[in-house]
C-alpha cells in the first residue's frame, strides 16, 4: 500500500541537507513575506541563513498563533504506565540493556496515580510505556482506557507502534491522540540507535502515522529526538511528513513536539547540540509554515525557556510531570526515563501562564462529542 514511504524514498538525506544549508537571506526574506508558505520556505526558515531574522519570525509566529489559538495554553500530563522494554535505544533510560527495576502498573496502582493527577487539575492525560509485548499490549491498553476513561476528557498515548486493527480498536475504547516520534529520519543512524527489538524496524515506524490516519485517530503527534542527527534535516523530514499526512488524512489533527535529548543515568551524549536560539527558530519556522498545527513543549525544557516560549507559538504544555511508572503516588523514587528540567507544580505553571496574559486550559474535549462512545 502506498504511503509516506513513497515520498520518503524519493528524497535523499544528503541532498536535502545541502539544500537547507545553501538557502540564502533572499530565500528567507521571500519565505517571510509569502502569504502561505511552502516546504521550500520551511527549509529557508530553519536554515542558518534565517538566524538574523529570528525576531521577525517570532513576531509573525506570535500573531499567527494568537489568531488561530487565542490567548490559551492547553495543559496535559504524562502518566507512565510501564518501563518494561524489549528495545535497546542508546538514548533512553528504559533501554533493555539498562539495569533498572522494571515495573508495569496494576489497575489499582493506576487509579492511585490518577487520583493524584486529577487533584493537580488535569483532564488530559498522556499514557506512556516502553515496548514489552508480553505485558504491555493492546488488551492492557484497552483495560487502561476503560479504567481511566471516566476520569479524563482527553486521552493521548505514546507507546510502541501498533497495527491498524489495534488502533481502530483502541479508538473505539476512547483513545483520542497518538504520538509516535520517528526519533530520526536518517535510516542508517536510526539503526545504530535502535540495534535490538521491534523498534529496530525503521519502515514499520515510518509507516505508523499512515496507519493512525487510516484508523481515524483524531490527533496524530509527530517529532524527532533532537540530538541524534542534524536537527535541520530531521525537522524538514518531519515537516514533509506532516504536509503529506494533512493532505492524505485530512480529518485528523496534528501536533509537533521537539524533544531535545536529555541526560539520564548512563546515557548517550547528543551528537548534535541544539541551543535555545535554534529551538526558538525551529518553533517559529513550524508556525510560519503551518498556521494550524499544534506545537507542544514538555518539562524537558528549562523554566526560563518555557516561560518565554508561550508567546512565540506554543499551544500545549505539560506540567508537574513524572517520567517514571508510579512517579506520582505509587513509587516516587523509581528510575526516570529522563531527567525533567522544569520541576514546578501544575498550579505554579498555571500561575506563570496567567502572568504572561494567557489562560491555562485544562479541558478542550468531551466524550459527549464522540457518538461511537455513547
Amino acid at each position, binding site marked *: 500500500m502506498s504511503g509516506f514511504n513513497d515520498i520518503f524514498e524519493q528524497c535523499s538525506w544528503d541532498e536535502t541537507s545541502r539544500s537547507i544549508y545553501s538557502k540564502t537571506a533572499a530565500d528567507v526574506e521571500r519565505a517571510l513575506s509569502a502569504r502561505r508558505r511552502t516546504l521550500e520556505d520551511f527549509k529557508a526558515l530553519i536554515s542558518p541563513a534565517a538566524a538574523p531574522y529570528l525576531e521577525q519570525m517570532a513576531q509573525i509566529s506570535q500573531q499567527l498563533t494568537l489568531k488561530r489559538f*487565542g490567548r490559551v495554553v492547553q495543559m496535559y500530563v504524562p502518566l507512565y504506565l510501564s518501563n518494561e522494554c524489549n528495545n535497546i535505544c542508546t538514548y533512553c533510560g528504559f533501554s533493555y540493556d539498562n539495569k533498572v527495576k522494571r515495573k508495569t502498573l496494576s489497575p489499582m496502582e493506576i487509579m492511585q496515580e490518577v487520583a493524584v493527577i486529577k487533584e493537580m487539575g488535569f483532564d488530559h492525560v498522556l499514557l506512556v510505556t516502553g515496548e514489552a509485548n508480553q505485558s504491555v499490549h493492546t488488551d492492557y491498553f484497552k483495560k487502561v482506557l476503560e479504567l481511566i476513561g471516566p476520569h479524563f476528557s482527553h486521552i493521548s498515548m505514546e507507546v510502541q507502534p501498533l497495527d491498524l486493527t489495534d488502533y481502530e480498536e483502541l479508538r473505539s475504547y476512547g483513545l483520542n491522540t497518538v504520538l509516535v516520534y520517528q526519533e530520526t529520519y536518517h535510516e542508517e543512524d536510526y539503526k545504530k540507535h535502535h540495534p535490538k527489538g521491534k523498534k529496530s524496524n525503521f519502515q514499520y515506524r515510518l509507516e505508523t502515522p499512515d496507519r493512525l490516519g487510516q484508523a481515524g485517530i483524531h490527533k496524530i503527534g509527530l517529532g524527532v529526538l533532537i540530538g541524534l542527527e542534524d536537527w535541520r534535516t530531521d525537522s524538514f523530514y518531519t515537516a514533509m511528513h506532516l504536509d503529506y499526512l*494533512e493532505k492524505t488524512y485530512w480529518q485528523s489533527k496534528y501536533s509537533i513536539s521537539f524533544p531535545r535529548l536529555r541526560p539520564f543515568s548512563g546515557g548517550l551524549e547528543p551528537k548534535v547540540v541544539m541551543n535555545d536560539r535554534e529551538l526558538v527558530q525551529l518553533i517559529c519556522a513550524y508556525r510560519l509554515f503551518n498556521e494550524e498545527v499544534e506545537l507542544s513543549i514538555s518539562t524537558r525544557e528549562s523554566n526560563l525557556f518555557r516561560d518565554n516560549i508561550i508567546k512565540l507559538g506554543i499551544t500545549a504544555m505539560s506540567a508537574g510531570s513524572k517520567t517514571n511508572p508510579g512517579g506520582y503516588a505509587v513509587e516516587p523514587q523509581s528510575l526516570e526515563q529522563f531527567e525533567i528540567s522544569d520541576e514546578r507544580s501544575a498550579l505554579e505553571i498555571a500561575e506563570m501562564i496567567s502572568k504572561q496574559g494567557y489562560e491555562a486550559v485544562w479541558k*478542550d474535549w468531551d466524550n459527549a462529542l464522540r457518538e461511537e462512545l455513547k
Partner: protein
Amino acid sequence: MLKIADKIFNSRLFTGTGKFNSAIQMEEALLASGSELVTVALKRVDMHTDEDDILLHLKYPHINLLPNTSGVRNANEAIFAAQIAREALETNWIKLEIHPDPKYLMPDPIETLKATEELVKLGFIVLPYIHADPVLCKRLEDVGTAAVMPLGSPIGSNKGLKTIDFLEIIINQSNVPVIIDAGIGAPSDAAKAMEIGADAVLVNTAIAVSGNPIQMAKAFKIAVEAGRMAYKAKLGAIGSHAIASSPLTSFLD
C-alpha cells in the same frame, strides 16, 4: 427587533467565548458588547459540575447560551452532542458546527443538512454554521432551520467578507434570519455585513485576541448598530462614473 424562533433580541451582535486570556476578561468583554446570544463550545465546558468557570461568568439574565458542537465530524456525532447539551445546559438551542476538516474547519454541507433535519424533528432550535452557499440555505430552510449562519471568510482568519457576493444572494432570498459568522475581523466588516442586510453577526476572534478586548467589544457593538441603522436608512447608489458632457441620448430631447 430581531426574532429567532420565539426569542426577541435587542442586540444583533452575537459573540463567542473562546480565545480570551481569562474567564473574567471574557465576561467583561461580553458585557461591553451588549450581546444577548453567546456561543459556548461543549468541548470546553464541564457539564458534570455547576461550577464550570466559563458558565459561571455567563450567568446574566440578558445572556442566552448557544451551545455549539465544535469538534464533531458528522451528523450522528452532532445529534448526540446536541442532546447532551440540551440536558446539561437546559436549552434546546444549538449552534450546529460540523467540520470534519480540523485544519481549515470548513463546515460539511451534507452532514449539516442531515443533522439539521433530524434535530428539528427532535425539537431543537437549530442555527447551522455553513459555507456561504445560497442553495444550501434554501435546503436548510426547507427542513426547518431557525436561521442560517454563513461564513464571511475562513473561521478565525479575520479576513472580512470575502464571500460578500454570495452573502448578498443569501440575504436577498432568505426567509429565515441570516447571521454572518466567521471571518469578521474588524468593526468595519461587521458594519458592512449589517449594511448589506444581515440580521446579525457573530464575532469571537476579533474581540478576544485584540489588544483590548473590552474596548473592541464596544467598538463592535457600535459598528453593528451603525450598520443596521444605515441599512434601514437605505444607502445612496454608488456612482462609478461621471455624467458625460456630450450625452449619447441628447438627440432624443
